[in-house]
């Protein structure tokens, strides 16, 4: 039996229209249309053709329905020019990643969910409460944001080779129990990635049942992200007068946000006049830093870990790609691509503090070191 929705999923991931797939298979478009709506037997030759054209194994089309990410539940952070077929592709890849995670974690203890949910709370207040819930001090930078989110039960997935106009989207899954999910692009600079994640976290805690127009929801999520990553109190303390692009640039590495985000934040907090704000953006544009801020201030992008961690536990380090492919009914190439977008154990960042503790441990172990005695010991 062939599940029509699986055919549709594979076709959408390949960004093919029904007509394009039909042309490749040398059949009429109505055949593809019918295939996608029914669950029934189809000639082997046709199925093999679909598998060949889409790169999915035949077993993929024979399995039951996966989770649904209803379109209405998706809050996309992307430029308006992102084509609809790319949005659909991203959604379908996210479904695959979610499904794979569910399968891999079937025998594992789930991570408890620790994120609040709000109805009538201002974004600023919501950000402050969320920081406390996640165990973060109220006025310090947020290190390892993706790790924090995943440790608190949010599924974060990266989409490999996403269109550069795409940033992130989020939703609450329709599975039982419902899971918050954030999908991010794997090719964004670290500061942008962190802002995207904080923005989507805002959607998850503020808009579990979204109401109001999209612009309003976006504005609230932006307000949440700004307060979450750059708390007002800390900004008032750290942004010194007179504000210059250079002084804000010095804050970028510490806070892990772009210079532009800091300029906007300073303006929102009325630390800059409108004229100063415009002048700073003129400067930034002139220097060509709107799209790409200077490389000396780069923040290393963090990768989500959960999907790969589950694979490592279930199938070893590095994970056995063939076994995962057989579990998920996907091709090994696709599994490799998905795992590549996620952090392996070796990719976990080693902090300066971590390096130092290693050195101290080495010194402690050393036998050829004279230890000084305190006077009076």
């Amino acid at each position, binding site marked *: 039996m062939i599940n029509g929705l699986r055919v549709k999923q594979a076709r959408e991931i390949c960004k093919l229209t029904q007509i394009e797939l039909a042309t490749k298979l040398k059949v009429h478009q109505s055949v593809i249309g019918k295939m996608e709506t029914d669950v029934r037997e189809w000639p082997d030759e046709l199925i093999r053709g679909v598998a060949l054209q889409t790169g999915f194994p035949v077993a993929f089309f024979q399995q039951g329905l996966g989770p649904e990410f209803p379109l209405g539940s998706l809050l996309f952070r992307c430029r308006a020019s992102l084509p609809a077929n790319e949005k659909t592709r991203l959604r379908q890849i996210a479904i695959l990643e979610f499904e794979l995670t569910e399968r891999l974690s079937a025998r*594992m203890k789930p991570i408890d969910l620790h994120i609040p949910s709000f109805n009538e709370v201002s974004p600023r207040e919501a950000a402050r409460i969320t920081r406390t819930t996640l165990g973060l001090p109220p006025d310090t930078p947020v290190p390892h944001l993706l790790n924090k989110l995943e440790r608190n039960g949010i599924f974060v997935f990266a989409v490999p080779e996403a269109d550069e106009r795409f940033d992130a989207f989020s939703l609450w899954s329709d599975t039982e129990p419902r899971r918050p999910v954030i999908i991010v692009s794997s090719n964004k600079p670290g500061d942008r990635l962190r802002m995207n994640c904080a923005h989507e976290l805002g959607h998850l805690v503020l808009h579990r049942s979204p109401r109001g127009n999209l612009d309003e929801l976006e504005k609230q999520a932006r307000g949440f992200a700004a307060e979450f990553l750059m708390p007002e109190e800390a900004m008032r303390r750290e942004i010194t007068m007179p504000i*210059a*692009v250079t002084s804000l640039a010095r804050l970028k*590495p*510490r*806070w892990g946000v772009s210079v532009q985000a800091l300029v906007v934040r300073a303006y929102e907090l009325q630390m800059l006049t409108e004229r100063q704000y415009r002048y700073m953006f003129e400067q930034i544009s*002139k220097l060509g830093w709107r799209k790409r801020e200077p490389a000396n201030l780069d923040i*290393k992008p963090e990768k989500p870990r959960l999907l790969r*961690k589950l694979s490592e536990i279930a199938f070893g380090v590095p994970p056995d790609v063939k076994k995962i492919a057989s579990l998920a009914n996907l091709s090994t190439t696709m599994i490799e691509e998905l795992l590549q977008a996620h952090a392996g154990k070796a990719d976990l960042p080693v902090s*300066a503090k971590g390096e130092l503790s290693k050195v101290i441990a080495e010194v402690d172990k050393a036998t050829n070191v004279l230890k000084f005695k305190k006077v009076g010991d």
Partner: protein
Amino acid sequence: MITKPDEPEQIRDFVSDAINTVYEGLLLGAYKAQEYFDEGSKEINYPLAANIARYHAMQYVKSNRRVDDPYYLGELPNNSIEIRQDWCLIKVLKGRNGEPPTATHTVRSQEFYHQQPMQPNLPGINWINVWKSRDWKTFLQQCTRLNLILCWEVDYSYNISHVQLMCPRQSGRFWQGVKTFWRLPVPHPVLGILNLPTVDETQEVEDLPVFFEEHTAEQDNDD
């Protein structure tokens, strides 16, 4: 003889703290000048704008100079900015079309451009010839102090467009232009911000607490 770096780039690096602070100050000063003329909806008066920019740059450098910074700010009339750092004297001057202004008629100004007052008057050193020499290495071997010009330029809207560090050799009359041993562009001060610890380096990260159902965290630690 004081040990000095040979290469102009090394000299630029040596005075980078000072010139970056001045550059930041000039960016602020240029903004203040724009603001002054914008608010009154007046056409930009360039000599006055330069004075406003210099004034604010000077204030910025004064307020941002840390006690342990290696440079000192000279107090000069008309908001002129002069910085001393070890064996360097840097004058901050507004240029045009990539060229610094020529020396004024004062002896002090002429001497600055000709690198003269910095030469030790010692027997055996014919310092008059030093500045005539076009060879930077020869000059550098004999000089003990170095005069530099930090030349800044603005565009039509009074945005800082170029900043250069120059080592003058001879002023010449204004139509001849200033002859220099070398001139180097000064990159935007933001590009000089290096090696600051990033947000993720401040804290260690722990792997996710994912285990098989029957497996506990304690067991994992024992492994």
